């Protein structure tokens, strides 16, 4: 007999190749300003989002979802990365400050961890769900997130909660979003899944080549 371990599995019990994961990290704002109706919208939106993601499952790809919540003193991993079809939303309660920077840092560490996001995964996507006004430094962590590795290529969507958002909050959301992508409203939550269908097709081809970065000599400045 051969030493091939596969031969020990009966043919009838062999499995299809597992679909390639498309990791989606949801950054959910659960700060004090989300208290009341907004946090209810968030809880509802999450459930709608999960089922929309689960509906996208195919042999070629499967959306996995993780949720990072930020509120109070720090961000935490509310739900680890699991297939959307298996995800169950446990309700969150709003309170405290808005440590968005902390959430971005945590997300970056998760994306860079091969134990969490395997090499074979599609380019990850990030979804920020917030009413917008961070209380910590979020620009530097965003730059760090965009600078290195897989996170740099992540597709970013922003979803605004509540109709009373300030221009500053709007700025945070639009800055977070991938350039050229509008901020989604909470009532467009099923649009997110449609966006991701496009994303799955698009992200894999989204590579960039940089050439010709050579510092000129002073005399080169006087080009004929």
């Amino acid at each position, binding site marked *: 007999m051969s030493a091939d371990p596969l031969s020990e599995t009966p043919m009838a019990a062999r499995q299809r190749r597992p679909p390639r994961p498309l990791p989606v990290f949801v950054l959910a704002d659960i700060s004090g300003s989300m208290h009341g109706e907004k946090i209810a919208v968030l809880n509802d939106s999450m459930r709608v989002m999960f089922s929309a993601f689960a509906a996208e499952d195919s042999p070629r790809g499967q959306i996995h979802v993780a949720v990072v919540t930020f509120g109070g003193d720090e961000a935490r991993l509310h739900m680890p990365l699991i297939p959307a079809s298996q995800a169950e939303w446990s309700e969150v309660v709003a309170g405290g400050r808005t440590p968005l920077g902390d959430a971005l840092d945590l997300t970056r560490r998760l994306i860079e961890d091969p134990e969490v996001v395997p090499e074979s995964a599609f380019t990850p996507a990030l979804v920020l769900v917030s009413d917008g006004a961070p209380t910590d430094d979020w*620009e530097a962590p*965003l*730059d760090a997130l*965009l*600078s*290195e590795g897989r996170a*740099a*290529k*992540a*597709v*970013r969507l922003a979803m605004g909660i509540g109709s009373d958002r300030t221009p500053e909050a709007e*700025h945070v959301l*639009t*800055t*977070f*979003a*991938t*350039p*050229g992508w509008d901020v989604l409203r909470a009532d467009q939550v099923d649009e997110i899944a449609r966006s991701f269908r496009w994303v799955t097709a698009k992200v894999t*081809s*989204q*590579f*960039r*080549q*940089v*050439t*010709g*970065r*050579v*510092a*000129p*000599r*002073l*005399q*080169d*400045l*006087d*080009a*004929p």
Partner: protein
Amino acid sequence: MTMTVEHIPEYVRDERGNTYQLDRGTPIGEGGQGVVLRVKRSRLAVKICFDDGQPSLGDDIRERLDRLRWLPIEDLPVSRPIVRLDEPHVGYVMELLEDMASMESLCQPPAGDLGPWYARGGGLSRRLRLLAKCADVLGRMHGRGIVYGDVSPGNILVSADPEHDEVWLVDADNLRVESSPADRVVKTPFYAAPELLRRLSGNTPFSDAYSFATVAYETLVANHPLLGDLVEDGPVEYQEDVQRGLLPWVGHSDDDRNRSSHGLEPGLVLTKRLRALFEQTFEEGVRTPYRRPGLHTWADALHAAADLTIVCPSCRQTYYAFCMFCPWCRAEPPQIVVVQAHDVLPAGFAGRAQHLAPRTEYLVLQGGQPVNVTARLTRVLGGDAHTSVARLTWNGAYDVTVRNVGTTAMRRVPAAGGAGRMVFPGSEFVEDVRMPWFLHFGEDSRVHRALTFMLPRRSES
């Protein structure tokens, strides 16, 4: 009635009976056709035309002023005539911005050292910028099929304050659609193209280009491009000959008979691109008008040259960043950061992946001196090239503060790639020149421009 500068009246009257008191002390401008004087206690000026011996001069002026009403120049910085002067004077009243002086103050140096005079006029940097703006205006006119006609220092007004760099053209009555030699040709001696002097042609965009090149050379080098040692030390007839293109210009590429031992060193106030444009104008372009560089080409080369200038920390003169030391005082040059433009070709356009092709267009930053980036550097085509899109301030160490002063968002993308992030109008961020990101001005799906920052290599060679 014959009018010369010596016979300027104190009062003139317009056709509607209004009287104007003229400031006769300092004419604003003086061209081949007349003199422009400020009206006392007003924002008006009066142009009085010299009698050129033609009995129909008054009718001619009336016709030219009528023509101006339908030429499309509303958005150009050209002072428009308001009302015609009454007899016996020939001329008109025009609007005027405050505090403008003629370009003559920047190209006709007084006796004595050139350095302090050059510096008073804003130095090399401001001269390049003013000339670029003037070329822009003329280029836009040419684009609309209008010929200016009499480009000369007296007809170009610039901000009197060296802190500002506005440019206005006067003598709008010369504007025309083109002219044949049979028309009344307008010209100022020493600035007119050879074909006008030889009566081979009327005013054309090419004759404007020749006149502009003459003004530009004189302004930058402080020496007239035709008046070299051969002409100035030779018989008087040589002045006629050189204007008709029979003698070489001072910077001729292989005929050094008319070199000049006066004025500034051309190699230190002209970039290679500018030198090439002057050679094209005053060599091949002398006999072949259409071979002269057009006004848009001049505007671009002049703006590009201005973008390369730095201020000497020691003597405050401006000079090109590629000089090994300050040509005015020989001090060490300051440290600089170089901003380079790239053409970004989208994936599928020139290969499978996106391609950033570096351009040989640079902008130089000096510590603590904010610099505006205009759309000239960041747009591939079209639009107003002078709109400011970003303001850059280098702190002298590793930080460049970039402020979006435009009306559209730009994108910062890390060197490693990715989609980057948006920088919205009115917002700013700090870029580290050791690991700079690319600053994109356009969508990835289209051909667009991107900028990046670099510390230059200081090589011995």
